[in-house]
């Protein structure tokens, strides 16, 4: 893999992390002293993806804005890696009229026509609409693809099974991605899933399955390259499961009392930085510049969000119907 690509992956991950760190700060900032989930500039549930950036970066490196991505309740890393305008994203999270969904959607309901991005707060239910996007692309004679993401917990939901079967049957250009972060809220993988690797399940549908261990962004990049090329070439769907890591709890406020392996988690971003450094691709200075640029973008986006108007209460009933 060439250095530019590797640096690109690193930059994407840093941007995503920087964004979520900013959200994390503002999310908690004004909920004290009595922590109230509904209070503050950013209210509601907040599922952050810190630790899972390699999945999004590795997959989305092969996509253009014409390709579709449907993500989960934990969508920021994919939104950012797929090129969503940070300002629109931030403004939506802050519930502003300038947000992607004019403040109607919130962080689990991001719909971006310009990058064909969407997500859903209902687990596994992002898969089926991705089939429809892929179907449309195919009918329109384009080589565009749709990427559909779920967690390993979601892979035990019926919609997973139905979607992968149908995509295989109709040879739709879909790449199914499973983020296996070992946990579904408080339930560990071996209490939810009767086998070790969801890649095995690919054989139930006659499609290719791969599992990437170690949260390796380059491993993801490789597997996604093959899968996406095959999808573009009309060879139908593939399934990629990535063993990744949930660094910050299921949602903000989750005390994670059920979990005792927190000490052993490896943050993939510094890990990748060291690897790139020891390969001579990254220097401390360059890393600093990358981080600074990421923070600049994030600050700009957050500033845009905070200075944007809230929606008007009078408009609450707008947009139910087109």
């Amino acid at each position, binding site marked *: 893999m060439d250095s530019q690509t590797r640096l690109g992956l690193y930059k994407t991950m840093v941007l995503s992390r920087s964004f979520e760190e900013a959200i994390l700060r503002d999310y908690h900032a004004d909920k004290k002293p009595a922590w109230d989930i509904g209070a503050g500039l950013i209210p509601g549930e907040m599922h952050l993806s810190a630790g899972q950036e390699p999945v999004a970066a590795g997959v989305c490196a092969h996509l253009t804005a014409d390709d579709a991505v449907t993500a989960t309740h934990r969508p920021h890393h994919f939104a950012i890696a797929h090129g969503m305008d940070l300002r629109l994203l931030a403004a939506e999270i802050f519930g502003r009229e300038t947000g992607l969904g004019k403040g109607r959607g919130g962080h689990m309901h991001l719909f971006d026509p310009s990058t064909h991005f969407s997500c859903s707060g209902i687990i596994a239910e992002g898969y089926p609409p991705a089939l*429809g996007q892929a179907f449309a692309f195919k009918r329109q004679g384009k080589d565009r693809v749709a990427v559909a993401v779920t967690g390993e917990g979601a892979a035990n939901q019926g919609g997973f099974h139905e979607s992968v079967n149908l995509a295989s049957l109709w040879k739709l250009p879909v790449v199914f991605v499973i983020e296996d972060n070992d946990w579904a809220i408080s339930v560990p993988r071996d209490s939810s899933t009767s086998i070790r690797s969801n890649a095995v399940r690919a054989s139930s549908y006659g499609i290719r399955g791969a599992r990437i261990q170690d949260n390796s962004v380059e491993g993801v990049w490789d597997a996604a390259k093959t899968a996406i090329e095959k999808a573009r070439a009309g060879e139908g769907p593939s399934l990629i499961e990535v063993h990744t890591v949930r660094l910050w709890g299921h949602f903000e406020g989750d005390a994670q009392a059920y979990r005792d392996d927190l000490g052993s988690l490896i943050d993939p971003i510094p890990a990748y930085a060291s690897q790139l450094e020891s390969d001579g691709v990254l220097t401390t200075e360059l890393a600093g510049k990358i981080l600074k640029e990421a923070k600049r973008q994030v600050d700009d986006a957050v500033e845009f969000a905070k200075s944007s108007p809230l929606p008007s209460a009078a408009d609450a009933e707008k947009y139910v119907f*087109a």
Partner: protein
Amino acid sequence: MVLIDTSSASVTTRKLTTAKAMVEGISQEMELDQSVFVLGEDVGAYGGIFSSTTGLLEKFGPKRVLDTPISETAFMGLATGAAVEGMRPIVELMFVDFFGVCMDQIYNHMAKIHYESGGNVKVPLVLMTAVGGGYSDGAQHSQCLWGTFAHLPGLKVVVPSNPFDAKGLMISAIRDDNPVVYMFHKGVMGLPWMAKNPRSLGAVPEQSYEVPIGKASVVRTGKDVTIISLSLSVHHALDAADELATQGVDCEVIDLRSLVPLDRGTILESAGKTGRVLVVDEDYKSFGLSGEIAAVICESDPRLLKVPFARLAVPDVPIPYSRTLEYAVLPTADRIISEIKHLMG
């Protein structure tokens, strides 16, 4: 508001069944618009279990008329995703009774995406589905459930009762930029293998035309009592009205045609005129359509009602299999007549 003047000399009509009228509407739109396609279980070679797609596969081929696996969640979602990308799917849920296996796709996605996107994303599709009982298909294949769909925001809900409306509402539904749930009662389709029903065959223009969504139709004017109904029950209401006319009771019969939007104006006008209202609804009685109509009237003015509001609906019991029991819970012309007599005092 109907965009075709059926009395004009230039309009050619033929008698069609409701099923054939529906298919003609779909077919004409598929000819006009390449983005329209049909998917669902047995919509291809079989032509739809209730003949809602007969002949379309032969005409448009398997790229535009697709038999799906029995995976409603997957193919409902597929329809939504395709609509988001500019296509105009018509997706069939074979029986509305099966909604429970795919309702998340319908009401959390199809129905809400437009709102959640702040109006940036449109989901133009038609979800068509067979409803209703009366032929002993039991508790899992005989329901109407339009109240369930109408309660959840983001879906238009249309319910044609006759061939003319079936075609026009189908065309309107396909052209609508919103998800439209199109519920056709098996008993109005004019199927050769079900109880015959003269009102399931009627004059339908050859041309394409729209019946506007959200406008009820006063299918019989009268001054004594208002029967508000929809779908197959409109036929029973008209039969009852014919019979009551011979007994000196003059019924107005309203065919709602759509639940969402609900034509409150037509309801209020008729209730104001007659002061006596009976809702005839083949869906479950409580927490549904009949209650909504009561609210529409009495949040406008309860004094519109000269006598207590009445409703004839399935009395909150699963649809029984045995014919004696099923017909004890379904609205029939006989029961409409006795309700009306009761209202007339």
